[in-house]
């Protein structure tokens, strides 16, 4: 290999290195967290379906306030959308009617955060997963979220991604989320995730006849910020049970790790091939 050719190979390797460095540096930055995550316990055995949480949520987020007296809404299975960040659904089970509140689950290692290419989705140190204005509206977070929670305001030219933010603004001021505050039957409990898990376990141990011995969200997708306990199996009340225990961002890790390897080795290898075949032809 001539000196110039060597230089070419070296240069392309170097530039590849710098670009790939860009891509893996801090790749998994959101793992480390000095503060403790907060969490909300949803005790479905206590929920009476009054929808006060829906009203409080809409009120504190400036959305259209629903009418809690309207009981016809329970006839269909509702989903959250860009105009309501939380909904309560009714399920007929062998233990009678069970009401289940749904909203963003605030995963400990969220897929949407790993998906976002401008870091508009952030996992805050306090636990909430929040969205910010530098989003470009690619909606990759919607494709990735295992719970389908991010929703987009399609009817605006400059819409936002909307979803429950665990009332981040209230939490940093030391208040509890609006829905928790509004709940009249203490179906919702707010605290650090560790305390919440302990409380959930305590309830299950002290009333083994009421609860099934499982905390939904303790291990699902490596842990979520909303935890559910219930008297009936969770697939009966509409929570997805096929998600597995692996953190969703980990599915992308093998690919992300192969990027610098390919960017470094491929060009050098290709150039080598080029000079080899060139000599051969002459």
């Amino acid at each position, binding site marked *: 290999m001539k000196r110039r050719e060597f230089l070419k190979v070296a240069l392309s390797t170097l530039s590849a290195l710098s670009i790939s460095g860009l891509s893996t540096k801090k790749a998994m930055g959101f793992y480390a967290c000095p503060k403790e995550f907060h969490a909300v316990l949803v005790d479905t055995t206590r929920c009476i379906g009054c929808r006060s949480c829906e009203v409080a949520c809409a009120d504190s987020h400036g959305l259209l306030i629903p009418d809690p007296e309207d009981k016809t809404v329970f006839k269909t299975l509702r989903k959250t959308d860009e105009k309501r960040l939380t909904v309560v659904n009714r399920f007929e089970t062998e233990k009678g009617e069970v009401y289940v509140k749904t909203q963003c689950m605030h995963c400990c290692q969220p897929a949407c955060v790993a998906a976002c290419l401008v*870091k508009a989705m952030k996992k805050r140190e306090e636990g909430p997963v929040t969205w910010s204005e530098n*989003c470009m509206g690619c909606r990759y977070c919607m*494709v990735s979220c295992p719970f389908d929670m991010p929703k987009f305001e399609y009817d605006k030219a*400059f819409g936002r991604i909307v979803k429950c933010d665990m009332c981040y603004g209230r939490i940093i001021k030391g208040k509890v989320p609006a829905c928790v505050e509004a709940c009249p039957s203490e179906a919702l409990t707010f605290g650090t995730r560790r305390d919440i898990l302990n409380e959930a376990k305590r309830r299950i141990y002290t009333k083994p006849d009421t609860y099934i011995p499982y905390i939904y969200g303790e291990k699902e997708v490596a842990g979520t910020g909303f935890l559910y306990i219930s008297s009936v199996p969770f697939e009966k009340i509409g929570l997805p049970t096929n998600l597995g225990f692996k953190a969703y961002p980990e599915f*992308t890790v093998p690919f992300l790790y192969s990027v610098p390897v390919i*960017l470094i080795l491929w060009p050098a290898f*290709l150039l080598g091939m080029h000079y080899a075949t060139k000599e051969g032809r002459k």
Partner: protein
Amino acid sequence: MDQIARNTEKSWFLFLVFKLLHLGIHLFGFLIFLVRELKPKGKILTPFNVITLPIIVAGAFFAVEHMFEGLSTGTNVSQEFPWGIFIGFNVMVGVPFAGGAYVLAFLVYVLNFEKFHPIVRATVLNGFLAYAFYASAIFLDLGRKWNILNPIIGNEFGVNSILFLVAWHFLLYMLAELIEFSPTVAEWVGLERLKKILSSMTLGACVFGIALSTLHQSGLGGLFMMAKNKLHPLWYSEFIPMLFFASSIPAGLSVVIVQETITRRFFSHRMSESYLRNYDDIFIWLARGAALALFVYFFLKVLAFIHEKSWVHLWSPWGAWFLFEVIGLVLVPSFLFHFGQARRDRRIILFAAILTMLGIIVNRLNYSMIAFKWYVPFSERYFPSLQEITITLAIISTQLWIFRWVVNRMPVYEVPHVEEPETERTFVPELGFTMANGGEKILKKNMKEV
């Protein structure tokens, strides 16, 4: 001392004025050249124009409308199906279709496989145009369009996102392709010096471009890694990125085969003698490559299938759809390619290429909308709206228009000849005919010696 200084100053000034004038004349000449070249060549009222022009106009209208009204005007994307055909078709299918550019660049510039040289420029041009137009499709699809530069200017760098990598690699690859194609432009404008400089960058651009292509072709598949619970298990596999990369090779080659069939029909007047002579041979070699690449892709598909133990899902309508894709649109065309090249039959090869392209379309649509959220009932599923389809067709038509414009003007289909000094022909009266390159001087010298 002073005198000299003043004189040099003066001469510098004169020199500058002279240079500026010179440049001005050049620019003026170039402008005239450009205006002349911008005029359409050939007939205007061709069937192609008559069909595509209204589509382009309508598409542009819809695009502008939806840009100012928000995505719900004109598109059917929903909370359930956030990605429609702009991403699911234009990008997901368009990128592997443009894969021919990196495959041919690899064969010609890296492996020195000279046989494909005549078609490499057209393919790179096509690839570049394709990418430029996906960028526009992405722009149309974004919900917050004016933030499109955020991942590039660092507001903020989402380095842990596969989409971030894909976006950057897209951009850099477009640059690489531009460099690969630029010598042709320089030749067209007549800037020989510039062309030499640009040509010397080709190899670097190719090598870099191939690495980038490897990554973003597979990266597009990587986007679905986190849609694990949404994709039908027959399609989800940890090898999606590899499968996307492997399938982009036969996809790219098939598109080249179709492209060359069409351009041969319509642009043969622009093609060099040697290309037309070798046309059949090139075709056969493309088919050989495609047969092999397609078979490798099939093999990987089977490996992924076995690895995921997916056979339990085969006995269902989805299983039939899967088998149709993998056997009917991958294995069959692979054999057809082989068969066609053995019999040297261009029609079979063309048919196989079209089948392969169909297979890629079906495969990518499966990932982006058909097997994606397969559990959602039919009534809530995504179907592209009329406006979306029009915009998509308009994008493709515009691309074809530009391709035609360039091929009709720039030396796309000429083998870049080895640098020869300008031929000077002089008449040699002693011999009674002209001789080139100062041959007559050598001749005279030799004659004297004799």
